[in-house]
């Protein structure tokens, strides 16, 4: 398990990086924290001809507040997010989810942009982005463009990102006083990818309004459960019949199994994580 020889570039600016990326002749791949890409290269599942290392791009390493938006650069590491007061205060759902992402060694390297671009259907970040209605800022030589999380994630390792685009940053709406968030996941071992998990945001919870319920680890992408949202809309916090109705309104036909885990089990686990996330909001 050794990667083949590849070319390595280490651009110093985003402009240089996207210029390199626009090379049509060669297959280029950006390298962020390397926590997914390096193993895939060694397994020869990923075989870039040119590796474009983003680690020198200080431009992409920022967390800032602009009015009602929290703007996070793609090269921000999980550990930095975990320790960020801005994130804790204004993007609490992210703070709830981060302890479930791998272990600290991985979190010290892994980046939010890497996880977003990778679009692993069992990963936490894509679900959080989608639950929060975040906006992904992509950049290429032709400039930036904004893509809503709903449109961004399209399938297993599939996104709306073009081959010549980088994830530049992600914009989160800052949480309001009325908003509440819930997060719950089931992983076989501490730090594993989820067998089933859910990220929930609500404009209010008593009564429930404006819910976004996003499951991860159960389908080919972060899966929004609009039926469950509708079942809860307007009912009061912890209302048992409403929660039961929501549990029974999951988009089960879109669920997929894993090795040794059937769709039935996934559905059962999804019901459980939904209930537990709702009760803890």
């Amino acid at each position, binding site marked *: 398990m*050794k990667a083949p*020889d590849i070319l390595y570039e280490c651009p110093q600016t985003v402009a240089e990086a996207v210029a390199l990326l626009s090379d049509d002749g060669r297959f280029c791949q950006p390298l962020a924290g390397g926590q997914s890409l390096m193993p895939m290269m060694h397994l020869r599942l990923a075989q870039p001809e040119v590796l474009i290392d983003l680690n020198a791009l200080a431009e992409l390493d920022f967390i800032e507040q602009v009015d009602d938006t929290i703007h996070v650069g793609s090269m921000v590491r999980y550990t930095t997010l975990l320790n960020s007061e801005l994130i804790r205060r204004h993007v609490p759902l992210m703070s709830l989810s981060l302890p479930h992402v791998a272990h600290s060694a991985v979190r010290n390297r892994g980046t939010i942009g890497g996880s977003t671009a990778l679009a692993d259907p069992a990963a936490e970040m894509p679900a959080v982005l989608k639950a929060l209605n975040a906006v992904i800022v992509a950049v290429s030589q032709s400039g930036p463009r904004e893509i809503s999380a709903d449109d961004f994630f399209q399938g297993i390792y599939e996104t709306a990102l073009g081959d010549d685009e980088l994830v530049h940053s992600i914009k989160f709406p800052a949480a309001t006083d009325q908003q509440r968030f819930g997060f719950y996941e089931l992983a076989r071992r501490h*730090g594993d990818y989820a067998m089933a998990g859910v990220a929930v945001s609500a404009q209010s919870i008593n009564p429930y309004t404006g819910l976004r319920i996003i499951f991860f680890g159960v389908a080919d992408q972060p899966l929004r459960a609009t039926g469950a949202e509708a079942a809860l809309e307007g009912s009061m916090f912890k209302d048992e019949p409403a929660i039961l109705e929501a549990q029974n309104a999951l988009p089960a036909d879109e669920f997929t199994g894993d090795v040794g885990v059937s769709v039935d089990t996934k559905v059962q686990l999804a019901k459980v994580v939904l209930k537990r996330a709702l009760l803890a909001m």
Partner: protein
Amino acid sequence: MSGPLHKFDQPNSYIGRSVERPDASRLVEGEGCYVDDLQLPRMTHAAFVRSQYAHANIKSVNVDAARALAGVVAVFTAGEINAEVSPYVGTLTHLQGLRSPPQLPMADRVALWQGEPIVMVVAQSRAVAEDACEQVRVEYEPLDAMVSARQALDNDKARIHPELDSNTAWVKDVDAGDVSAAFSKSDVTVVERTFQFGRHTGVTVEPRSTVVEFNRSDNTLVFHYSGQAPHMMQAIIARHLDFPEENIRVIARDVGGSFGIKIHTYGDEIATAVAAKLLRRPVKFIADRLESFTTDIHARDHRIDGKIGIDREGKIVALEIDDLTGIGPYSMYPRTSAIECNQILNLTGAPYDIENYRARGTVVFQNKNMMCQYRAVGHPVAMAVCDSLLEEAASEIDMDVVEIRRRNLISDDAYPCTSASGMKFADLSHQKSLQRLVEMMRYDQLRKDQVELRKAGIYRGIGLVSMVEVTNPSPMFYGVGGAPISAQDGATVRLDAAGALHVSCSITESGQGTNTILAQIAAEVFGVDIKRVKVTTGDTAHVPYGGGTWASRGAGIGGESVLLASDALKSQVLEVAASILQTTPDTLQIERGVVVSSADGSEKISLDELGRIVYYRGNELPAGVNAELIATRHYKVSDFPFVFTNGAMAAQVEVDIETGFIKVLDFWVVEDCGRVINPKLVDEQIRGGVVQGIGGALYEECLYDDDGQYLNATMADYLVPMAGEMPDIHIEHVETPTSTSTLGAKGAGEAGTGGAPAAILNAVNDALRPLEASIFQMPMTPERVLNALRVS
């Protein structure tokens, strides 16, 4: 000498104390030398093209493009490698009827499991070798794959080996007493269950690793390997590569875990030796994780129908098992793949007083990776089957699980005795161990808490196991059947001019602290500070001949050989000292590096002074004194086929009945491994073993699809328990020294792995019982637990 030496119990002795490991800081600081750390001049790197199919004819192999790649040194087809090797057969004469076709390192015309090597590439780096592997074209004709043991057994027409009349490798029957009569008595409650045990594997941190050097001028081969049995490897390479045995040197330096994985004949390692010989250059082969999962031996894979009968008093009247196990396409050489089944037949029910016992074992070939001996061979299966049946039966007659054990465990004063399956037991303490366990875990309180918590919807379970562990094997294990596997071990102890002790011993260190306990034994028996003892293991050029490390034999057999050699050297040194001091040896003793008067402890001569006289100023020795400051002794167990360790263990688990997740909350172990040489090391062996047992019970499984494709060959998909999944493991000891040796040490390396799965299985079923659900399949994954709950 026989019987325990009571001087071991003295307060300032080394034996029995948690002496720090002298090599720990070296390893922790990254100064260890593993095989991959070796960098030799002109060294090359190997990678293999492996069969993508579980069963396929190999129609053609084209290596032209691979050969042409820059940086490639050589590409060997299976035919080219196999031509240099005489076939090996994984059978032993004492496993009567076991059959397995001759085997060669690589697949030439037909591939019998996914992962079997087909082409070997040797290049200037492993990366280039892998590039070249991608250029090799193999044309396959896929054949039907026999994946499950049941499928292989039932399907005699689709034979894995056309030259055999069926896919069956071995059948063994045991029949003691009158089982049928016992089951049919009117007052007998009969419980029947079917158990399934998934395949798992050892997952060593350091993978299988080999560097082979060939020196043409003197026709010698140096085989550096990460392994446990240097002399066995030496014999195997000599036999099958046609070398004089003495021309092969096997070196096992630091070994990053072995667990029984690194004690077999692997085609890729043999091919590495062949390549080194053909190329006259050192060749390195380091298995990567993908290769580890698909080609390191797997273990378990048993389906067992079990049946127990108990009378109204809870006495076991009969036990019956029928084991079906699949071993892959061959029986592994030289230990064979029938041993696990054999152990299960030998050990099921072994802790209990059972007169009527019937067992059948059926071992079949399959198109999967080979199965062989992995830590606690057969034990987790045997213990889980019997102790689960026992707890199920206890619940049928409404008897407490501790009480039913008390009524059936062999009583502590009954030894020596022989079990229904013919196992000879001595010096065991089942009853006492159980009693200690119950006290340590506060059993009665736990039961009360359990009832309270159930009212709150929390499902906790408590499960126990009483177990034996096969340790310190005699030649009756392998040697008797014709394997080049030594059951004896030797030690040489030498005093040098500076008064330091050099110990070399034929057992090996694979991270468990072997070298430390050897130093403890030598320091104590001879009488020097442990800092002055240097231990060498793992090099056939430098250690006495012996078996190595397997079957929990290091301390009990290797340790005893060091004890005997140290004792002999001490006599020799005292004789020299007596002649220098003009007295008789019996008036002298050695204490902390000084020869002292045994009467009053006064210092007579230091060992360094004695060493200097002997080695530098021999002229000062009285005429006729022949000073030999070196002694060698060998030891094997001869009175018994094995020396058994016993233990009692318990687990407390919590089952989340909505998700099927199981959390092990606590684990308790009482073990009787005889003399405990180093409590800390023994405890860590037990803890590590328990964690591996938790792995087998809850997490670890080598998964194949119906076509024999391996599904979870990464550490992300094959789950081993990590720190977050480990409960507190509480340990106590009962010490009943074995009377077979002076040291009195039995083995302690495998009990945790052997017992933990049974305790956890019982605990889970105890938790599920109020829901009328049960599970008898390992690993107990959330999906399987949910299925059990859905059925109920």
